[in-house]
């Protein structure tokens, strides 16, 4: 039996910080305290003008290699999730193969998903490893949504931060059904207009970069419908109960939404991660950042059974069980 397992996670946050005081100066209807109360966010990291998704991805992966858990020469496949690539083409994962000195025998591809992307990436990695195509996958999530944001749009500027995360997934030599399991998925493209960068690609080409539009109430309504159902599907597929899970890590959308979801699904507070104070909503990197932080803070430990739940733009959602 071949089992894929997360071996290590690292992340990178760009240097520039936008804190609530800076936003409150610009948006007179808001105070720094009110922004934190409503979002749970104190600050977000923003990529520099000349810093793109591949740069954040590069730094996150170099941290992973520097930790000693894996090396560039080991990597057999690069999966990269982004909606803010450096270029329309070539593929960001291909550029990173070269920049990171990963073998030319490695496979590499990008996939375009937002906040749901990490769990989808884990599923793809599991498929590649457990079908014997490769023995390991470097899964990278990297976004610079800040480049799409209108300076005057408080709803997105208070929420989103830039980041990248690098996860090494490898064949687990322990012959037990551990690792990554019980994936459930969901898609509802009817919500496409509610989180969108409409202009700047090929349907509505223009010389300037398109702006991110978010219909917050519609997105909230989508999550309160889709996420409890996804958790329920995961529980049923795993033939477990809420109490059987040691911990739950949801996409760190915002504190307001997460608190309501936790309450609605009846997850005990001590088993539920909410901490986006220092990095904001980092889209597909929010789960790996939370996962790494939860490990560092010893909120989760080896052997724990964790539910990962991701949801967002598309609409798209997914959940899975991870044994640490």
């Amino acid at each position, binding site marked *: 039996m071949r089992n894929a397992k997360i071996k290590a996670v690292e992340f990178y946050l760009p240097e520039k910080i936008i804190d609530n005081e800076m936003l409150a100066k610009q948006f007179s209807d808001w105070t720094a305290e009110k922004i934190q109360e409503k979002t749970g966010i104190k600050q977000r990291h923003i990529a520099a003008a000349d810093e793109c998704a591949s740069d954040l991805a590069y730094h996150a992966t170099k941290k992973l290699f520097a930790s000693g858990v894996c090396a560039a020469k080991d990597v057999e496949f690069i999966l990269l999730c982004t909606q803010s690539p450096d270029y329309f083409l070539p593929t960001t994962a291909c550029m990173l193969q070269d920049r990171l000195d990963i073998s030319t025998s490695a496979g590499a591809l990008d996939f375009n998903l937002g906040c749901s992307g990490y769990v989808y990436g884990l599923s793809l990695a599991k498929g590649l490893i457990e079908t014997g195509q490769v023995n390991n996958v470097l899964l990278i999530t990297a976004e610079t949504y800040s480049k799409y944001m209108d300076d005057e749009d408080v*709803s997105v500027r208070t929420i989103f931060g830039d980041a990248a995360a690098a996860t090494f997934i490898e064949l687990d030599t322990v012959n037990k059904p551990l690792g990554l399991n019980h994936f459930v998925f969901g898609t509802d493209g009817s919500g496409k207009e509610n989180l969108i960068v409409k202009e700047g690609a090929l349907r509505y080409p223009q010389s300037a970069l398109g702006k991110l539009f978010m219909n*917050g109430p*519609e997105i909230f*309504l989508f999550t*309160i419908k889709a996420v409890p159902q996804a958790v329920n599907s995961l529980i049923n597929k795993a033939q477990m109960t809420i109490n059987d899970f040691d911990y739950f890590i949801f996409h760190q959308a915002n504190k*307001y939404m997460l608190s309501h979801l936790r*309450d*609605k699904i009846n997850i005990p507070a001590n088993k539920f991660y909410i901490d986006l104070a220092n990095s904001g909503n980092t889209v597909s990197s929010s789960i790996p950042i939370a996962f790494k932080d939860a490990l560092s803070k010893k909120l989760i430990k080896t052997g724990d059974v964790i539910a990962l739940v991701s949801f967002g733009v598309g609409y798209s959602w997914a959940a899975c069980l991870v044994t640490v």
Partner: protein
Amino acid sequence: MEKKEFYSKMDEIFELDTGTITGTESLSDNLLINSLSMLGLILVLDKYFGIQMKPDEIIKMDTINALFHRIQGLKTH
């Protein structure tokens, strides 16, 4: 949730003093509903009534009182 308690929740959502809402207020004209208060309304409807109303449908309600009656109607179905 009784009407009085619902009005009290509306006071919180629209950041008004307790007892301000009487039910006759228009969501768009008097209360100037915005994205943040709409989030609050969606949460209250889901948390206390188990009802999920679309923002477009909520904004069509003439008054807070009309919204409360709409919620009661949805609860009975």
